[in-house]
Structure formats: structure tokens, C-alpha cells
């Protein structure tokens, strides 16, 4: 080729050289487009694939690990759940409503493609500080509106997740959506194109020019001039998605379909290549057969369009009419666009004439890169942080109130009341708790669902930060009565070609992997979103997001955070250390993102979690809450606010009051129990060699009183705390600046 047009397509010179070697000739424009999409980070995981080898991906409950549309775990009784998360960061930065909406739609289709009924959505959102910038508040409103509009219409409850804030995300917000599906083991579908002669059928929406090149758009830095990439943003139609779900599941009940794949990034191309590659077959697709909503689309445009609400079905030869009949019932069409071949070639035709032809394997064989990793220079300074660098505020009541109203901690009811979180009638524990709990209809069991992250932790210590997130996710499951089963990970990072970003990526993956091994929660799939940086604001915090599922073996085990009865004892499991580093307290009160992430002993974590789950299953625990952001005082206040009760507690620890109250020492739980159970809880903890301190009691008087070594540190009304907590977000969104 005369000009280096591959560069414009996003391929490097060496990648171009490699693909011409694979093909034995130079590609035409159609073929070049195929490689450019399939070899992008988004489709080809070029930078992350070599790191995935660290992950534990198998286990007794793992039915399907990475490699399908979503992973699958066994929840007993021949029933399984399938789940995955996906990022939609760049689209949401530019068109937040549609970007977020289509993120929800895309991940729902991944779940549908497994043959499952989508039963829950969660999302993890990261924005700049809402109190500082009108544009940020607009992004927040639009993203949440988009998620709600799509999820509500499609009838999948949005049951949980998180919304976190830091100006590290000011130019590049993060929108990661997770979906969970339920099915019987016998209903599992795979993304595979077996059976030479079988038909490729496209179902759902018409194909247009929307979402053109979305996969490669997601694989480069977000820059101002990317406004030109607006064409790379798709438009969602949740009504169509709802029809697709109903129609597909009806088709799946019959024996017509051998394989299913969602059309996500890189549309028809990626979905068909992946199914063919898995079967070791070839495919042939005629772009003229694809139903379009725009005229004069070039073949490569048809192949890589990311028009939403489309699925690819691999249908048994001769069954096409029967499939189409079911889609007709739902006023949809299923159209044959090609078929499975035996020659291993990926062939694109236009009106019967071949316009592109490359080996299937070569499209799946994206080159991988192991880059230089260099410790980010800021770590030298932040690791050297000493608690003495900050003065302890005199009014600790005020600190508590400020923390309760801080963006990361305050109630997100403003957000989740815009989401239908009850449709489908399975939501036992709704948003706002440590974990959402769904029942499984017809059984006395349920599942726990969480999504957690902490970009600040990973910025200050990528490896231990990532470990901490997995540990916290599992704690959130355990305190809710669920046994952690498995995770899906969303790897949101900056540009990996920068050595310090690659270091963060590598260390975070190692950290996730170590924690998952210690806690027996294999990684069954995930998503990587790199290049999250803008020229103006730089890289985001390294932000691995952990979506975890757990099994609630009996609904009797479901436990929530709020205090239940006056007179119950308040118990802290785990050791409180003098740790201020990386805390929400340092960030909010001292405006300081520094220090090391609190210590974490994964073996101890495992032991403590097993113990807490055991005492919950024994029925000894009335309330349980993870000690996380804001530490002990915030957790105590949250349990009081939710239970509309007070607490009077006394500690006996020789340390700074702020560290004791707001430090974020890991592996800690706050429980409440009646007197008899409390004795047993303490006794069982001693047997395990775990610290269990009975620190006080739940009171009818709605005050939070905390003493340490006979000094009163906190004495404040629950109502004042409650107001700060419940109005915090509203206030931030109404800021006038």
C-alpha cells in the first residue's frame, strides 16, 4: 500500500507486517478493517492477555471460566448463574446517556447469549468530584438516567453496585456494568459455529453506521478531538432488547440453535470470528444479506458496525424457517447472512462476490505485548507518609458528620431510586447494603451480588490495593450471609504503553490473583478498558473493579447491616491498627491522597471470613457490616442510621483517636448479637485465634457515643448523622458552580 493507511486504522507497522505475512499478500481495505478491529486491545486483549495467566480460573463451582460470552458458576440443584461485567467508559464520556444505556444493553446480551434469563444488573461508576464541576454533575445525571432508562424498560432490576468520586476521573469517567443471569445447567448455550453448512442468522436491530470502529475507539486515549468519534457511539433501544430476550429464550427452548453470540464490539465481525474460531471452522458472510437501515454501506462498515440489540445465531441447516417463525411472533426477523464452511477461512462477500478473505485463526491471533513496567514515581513519596504528618482534628463529631456526607460514603439513594430494583420479584436485600441478595424462585436459597473498587488504594499500592478490593468484596458477601463463589474483573487503567501504567496493571492483576486464590474465588471472565486518560487530566487511578457472586445456602442466613434491637451487644471482629494511610479520612478531611494501603494478611482474611459466615449460618448474628471506607466510626453510624437506634461503645486501644475511629484496617467486621449469642461468638473466635471485642451495646437513645480509654471521642445524635448521610448526595448534585 502506498500510504501507511494501517496507521490510521490503528495498527502499528509491525502489526501490518505480521498480518501480511499471515495472509501471504497485502490486505485490501475490507481485510485491513477486519484486522484493525480484531487486533485492537478491546477485542484482542493485546496488552492484558499475557497477564491473565496469573488468574485462577477453575474450581469446584466453576462450570465455565473465561472464553465464553460470560462465565458460569454452579449454585447447586442443577442450577447455575452466569455473570460478567463490561466497561463503556469512552462512549459515556462523550455521550453519557447513550454510552451508559448501551453498556447495560451490551452486557445483558452477553448473558442472554449464554442461554440465561438476565435477572440482575449492577454497575460501578466513577466520576470527578460532583461538588466542583457542572459538567461532572451533568455526566452523573445522564449516566444514571441512561442506566435507569435502559434497565427499567428491559425489565432487569438494577440491584446494586457503587458510585465513587475522585478528580482522577474528571476527564474520563468510568461506567462498568455487570449482568447476572440464571438458568438450569441443561440450558447452557455456547458461542460456537459447528456443523458445516449451518446458517448464520442475524436477529434484532437493523445495521447502520452507528458505533463504527467502537472497539478501536475504546483502545486509544480519550482526546478532545475525539468528539469526531461521536460516530463510534451507539444508540440503544431497550424495547428491542426486551423483545430479543423473549424471542431468543423461546428459540433456545427448541433444538434449533448450535451456537449464540452477542454482537458487541466489532459487531458481526467479532461475533462470527469468535464462533468460527472455537469450532475450528470457517464462515462466509454476504454483507448484501444483512438488513440495513442506511444505504450504500461499504462491506467493512457492515462488518464492524456496532448497532445495538443484535445477536448472531448459528442455526441448524433446515431449521431457519422455524427460528424465523418464533421471531415473527415477536414482530422481529431472523435473517440468514451466511453459513459455516470447512475451509477455515473468514470470507466476506457482497452480492456473492468475495470482497475479503483471511484465515480465521489469524484474526484471533492478535499479537500480544509485554511492556516495560516501572514503579510510578509518586509511590516513593506516598509510601513514606507518616501519620504524624497530619494533625488530629479537635472536633471528631464534626469529622464523622463530614465523612458520612462525603461523596464516596453518603447514601446513594438519589441514584438507586431511579433504578427499578424490584422487578422480577427476587430482590431480598435491595441497594444500599453491603451486598444485594436475590432469592432463587422455588428454592430457599439465594445469591449475593457485589461490585467494588477503590482507585485510591490501587493508586497508592496497586498490588495490595487490588487484593484489598477482592477481600472487601468477599467480606461484603460474607456479612450478608453469602459464601463467595467467583469474580469477574473490570480492569480500568490508563495507557499501558506508559511503563508506570503497565506497572499498575501488572501489579493489580497479581494482587487480584493472589486474593482470589486465598479466598477461593476464581476469575471467570472480565473486561479490560485501557487508555483511560485525557491530555488535560492525565491517567485515571488504576481501577480494577471486582464483580462478585456468592451463594446464600438458606435464606435464613440473610443478614443486613442495621442494628435490630436495643440492648444487643456490638462486637468488632479483627484487629484495629494505627493506620491512616490511603483512607477516606485523609482524602476528605486532610485533602491528602497518601500513605500505604492498610496491611492485609490474606490467610487471616480467609480465616476471619469463614468464621463470620459460620456464626451467621449458626444464627448467632443479628446484624453484620463490613468495616470499610471511613472505618469503625462510619460503620457504627451506618448500622445505627439504618436501624434507627443508637450505640454506646468503649474501646481500649492506645492509639491516635482519628486512626481508631476512621482508619481502615482490613479484615474487620462489626456484628451485633444478643447476650447468649455474644458469648458464643467470642468463644468461637477465641478457638480460631481471632480477635473479637465486645465494645458496647445498641441503645434506644438515638445517640452514637464512643469512648476510648475513658476519653469520650464521639457523642452525636443519630439523626444528625442520618441527615448528613441521606442528604449528602443531593447537596453535592445541587452545588451551584
Amino acid at each position, binding site marked *: 500500500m502506498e500510504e501507511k493507511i494501517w496507521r490510521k486504522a490503528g495498527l502499528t507497522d509491525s502489526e501490518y507486517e505480521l498480518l501480511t505475512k499471515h495472509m501471504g499478500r497485502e490486505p485490501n481495505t475490507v481485510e485491513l478493517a477486519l484486522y484493525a478491529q480484531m487486533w485492537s486491545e478491546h477485542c484482542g486483549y493485546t496488552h492484558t492477555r499475557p497477564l491473565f495467566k496469573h488468574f485462577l480460573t477453575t474450581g469446584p463451582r466453576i462450570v465455565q471460566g473465561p472464553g465464553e460470552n460470560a462465565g458460569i458458576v454452579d449454585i447447586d440443584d442443577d442450577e447455575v448463574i452466569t455473570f460478567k461485567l463490561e466497561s463503556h467508559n469512552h462512549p459515556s464520556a462523550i455521550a453519557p446517556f447513550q454510552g451508559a444505556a448501551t453498556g447495560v444493553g451490551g452486557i445483558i446480551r452477553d448473558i442472554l447469549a449464554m442461554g440465561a434469563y438476565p435477572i440482575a444488573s449492577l454497575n460501578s461508576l466513577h466520576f470527578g468530584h460532583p461538588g466542583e464541576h457542572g459538567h461532572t454533575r451533568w455526566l452523573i445525571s445522564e449516566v444514571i*438516567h441512561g442506566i*435507569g*432508562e435502559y434497565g*427499567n*424498560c*428491559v*425489565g432487569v432490576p438494577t440491584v446494586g453496585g457503587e458510585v465513587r468520586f475522585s478528580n482522577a476521573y474528571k476527564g474520563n469517567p468510568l461506567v462498568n456494568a455487570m449482568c447476572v443471569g440464571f438458568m438450569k445447567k441443561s440450558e447452557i448455550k455456547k458461542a460456537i459455529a459447528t456443523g458445516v453448512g449451518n446458517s448464520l442468522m442475524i436477529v434484532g436491530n437493523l445495521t447502520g453506521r452507528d458505533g463504527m470502529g467502537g472497539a478501536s475507539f475504546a483502545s486509544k486515549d480519550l482526546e478532545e478531538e475525539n468528539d469526531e468519534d461521536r460516530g463510534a457511539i451507539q444508540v440503544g*433501544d*431497550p*424495547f*428491542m432488547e*426486551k*423483545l430479543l430476550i423473549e424471542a431468543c429464550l423461546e428459540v433456545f427452548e427448541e433444538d434449533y440453535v448450535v451456537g449464540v453470540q452477542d454482537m458487541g464490539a466489532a459487531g458481526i465481525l467479532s461475533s462470527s470470528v469468535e464462533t468460527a474460531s472455537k469450532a475450528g471452522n470457517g464462515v462466509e458472510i454476504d454483507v448484501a444479506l444483512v438488513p440495513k437501515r442506511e444505504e450504500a454501506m461499504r462491506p467493512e462498515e457492515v462488518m464492524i458496525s456496532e448497532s445495538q440489540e443484535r445477536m448472531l445465531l448459528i442455526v441448524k441447516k433446515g431449521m431457519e424457517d422455524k427460528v424465523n417463525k418464533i421471531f415473527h411472533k*415477536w*414482530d422481529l426477523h431472523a435473517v440468514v447472512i451466511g453459513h459455516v464452511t470447512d475451509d477455515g477461512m473468514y470470507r466476506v462477500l457482497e452480492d456473492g462476490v468475495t470482497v475479503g478473505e483471511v484465515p480465521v485463526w489469524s484474526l484471533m491471533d492478535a499479537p500480544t505485548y509485554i511492556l516495560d513496567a516501572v514503579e510510578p514515581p509518586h509511590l516513593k513519596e506516598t509510601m513514606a507518609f507518616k501519620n504524624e504528618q497530619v494533625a488530629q482534628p479537635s472536633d471528631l463529631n464534626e469529622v464523622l458528620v463530614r465523612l458520612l456526607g462525603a461523596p464516596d460514603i453518603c447514601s446513594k439513594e438519589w441514584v*438507586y*431510586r*431511579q*433504578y*427499578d*430494583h*424490584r*422487578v*422480577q*420479584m*427476587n*430482590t*431480598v436485600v435491595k441497594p444500599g447494603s453491603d451486598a444485594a441478595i436475590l*432469592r432463587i*424462585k422455588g428454592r430457599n436459597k439465594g445469591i449475593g451480588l457485589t461490585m467494588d473498587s477503590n482507585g485510591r488504594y490501587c493508586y497508592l499500592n496497586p498490588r495490595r490495593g487490588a487484593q484489598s478490593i477482592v477481600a472487601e468484596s468477599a467480606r461484603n458477601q460474607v456479612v450478608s450471609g453469602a459464601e463467595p463463589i467467583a469474580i469477574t474483573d473490570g480492569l480500568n487503567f490508563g495507557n499501558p504503553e506508559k511503563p508506570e501504567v503497565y506497572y499498575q496493571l501488572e501489579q493489580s492483576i497479581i494482587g487480584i490473583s493472589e486474593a482470589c486464590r486465598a479466598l477461593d474465588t476464581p476469575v471467570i471472565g472480565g473486561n479490560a478498558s485501557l487508555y483511560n486518560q485525557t491530555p488535560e487530566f492525565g491517567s485515571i487511578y488504576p481501577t480494577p473493579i471486582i464483580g462478585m457472586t456468592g451463594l446464600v445456602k438458606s*435464606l435464613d442466613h440473610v443478614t443486613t447491616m442495621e442494628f435490630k434491637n436495643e440492648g444487643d451487644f456490638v462486637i468488632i471482629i479483627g484487629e484495629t491498627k494505627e493506620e491512616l494511610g490511603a483512607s477516606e479520612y485523609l482524602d476528605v478531611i486532610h485533602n491528602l491522597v497518601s500513605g500505604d494501603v492498610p496491611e492485609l494478611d490474606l490467610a487471616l482474611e480467609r480465616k476471619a471470613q469463614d468464621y463470620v459466615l459460620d456464626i451467621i449460618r449458626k444464627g448467632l448474628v443479628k446484624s453484620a457490616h463490613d468495616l470499610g471506607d471511613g472505618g469503625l466510626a462510619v460503620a457504627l453510624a451506618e448500622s445505627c442510621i439504618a436501624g434507627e437506634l443508637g450505640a454506646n461503645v468503649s474501646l481500649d486501644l492506645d492509639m491516635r483517636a482519628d486512626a481508631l475511629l476512621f482508619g481502615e484496617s482490613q479484615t474487620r467486621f462489626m456484628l451485633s448479637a444478643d447476650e447468649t449469642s455474644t458469648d458464643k461468638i467470642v468463644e468461637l473466635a477465641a478457638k480460631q485465634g481471632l480477635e473479637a471485642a465486645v465494645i458496647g451495646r445498641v441503645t434506644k437513645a438515638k445517640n452514637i457515643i464512643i469512648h476510648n480509654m475513658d476519653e469520650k471521642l464521639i457523642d452525636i445524635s443519630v439523626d444528625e448523622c442520618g441527615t448528613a448521610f441521606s442528604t449528602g448526595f443531593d447537596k453535592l448534585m445541587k452545588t451551584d458552580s
Partner: protein
Amino acid sequence: MNWGVLLFPGSNCAEDCFHAVDKILGKPVKYLWHKDTDLGDVDAIIIPGGFSYGDHLRPGAIAHLSPAMTAVKEFAAGGGLVIGICNGFQILTESRMLPGSLLQNRGLKFLCQDQSLKVDNADTPFTSEYASGDVVGFPIAHNEGNYYAAPDTIAEMEANGQILFRYCSPDGEVSEGTNPNGSINSIAGIINRTGNVVGMMPHPERSADSVLGLSDGKGVFVSMLKHLEAKHG
């Protein structure tokens, strides 16, 4: 004693209503398809919530033109029990089987929350399990639940006891402060003049299964069942 749940493209609470009749009441129930002109042998019809036809044009505007709604009107004219929940309520007002309209919520946002309701008239086939003045908890989840009707219509409905439920505080206070969506007179659910067609924005089916921590809604279905049993001997 057969129940029917009317299914439109985009209905998303049909399974929930089906579950409430099938599993909570333990009574026979089937889906009715929007293209059907003959609804078959049913004694009560539930028009479920959701986004029929994607709420295109406006909620319920297309659904009310479907063949099945003609049959539903005939069924109601013959005295059959019909209850429209959420989008079902919107479809019933669009089809003029119930007076008034449902406008966008006052706060201009979708609102999903557990909501206290005051039972205003317990002397109907849909509310006999309650006592007038009872405070019950049903979830709401809607964007267009702001009930409006002309002042003389409202006056007439009030006089006739056609208001079944009003939004209220947990201790039963009905005021603008406890009105989540701006509905006139805090109206959450109404009944037609002849007393056999109900529309309500809150979801009784979602509070019919005690495992979900809410059980007040079961009363609506039990009331209907008792009425049907009495009618059929």
C-alpha cells in the same frame, strides 16, 4: 376460576403477576396475548406493568389499540374484574376504561421506592381484605405516575368512593410532603364507577411474597379471589 395476565411486547411485570396468582394464591393463571381477539375462559384479567411498545408515543398509547384491548373492554362491560398495575393503569386510562391520565412525575425522574399507601375505600372487590384507613406498603416504580383528572371528575370520583389508595407517610398522613409524584389528591389507585376495573401505580404483586420482606399487596389478589368465589358460589 381462571386468571389471565395480558402480555404486550415490552410488558415486564407479567411474570411477577403470574407468580402472584400461581404461587401466592395457588390459582390457575395463563398469559393472554396482545394479538388475541378471544381471551377464552377467564374470570379476572391483570394488565401488568412494564413498557408496552417501549412507551413509544406515550405510555399505553399504542397498547390500548391492540386487538386484545377490545376484548378486555367487552369483558369489563360484562362485569369481569380487570386490574391494571403501573403501565397497566396507563393503558386503562389511555383506553378510557378509567378516567384521567398519568403525567410525568413531579420530580421529572423515575422513582423506585417502597411506598406507604392509605386504603381509602375497602368496600370493593379489590380491597375487601383491608379496612378503610389501613396503611399498607407497596413498592412503586414509575416515571409517569402523576395522576391527573379534571377537577369536576376528581370531585365526582371522590364523592363516589372511587379512590382506592392514596400515597401517605408510614404513619398514615396524606400530604403534599408524602406525595411522591405529584398526583392530584395523592391518588395512587382508582376504580371505575361500576366497581370492576381498577388502575393503580403501586405494585401489589411485588409486595405479595413475604420472602421479599413485603406482604401487604397479597390482599388485593385475595380480595379479588374472594369476590370471584362468592360470585361463582
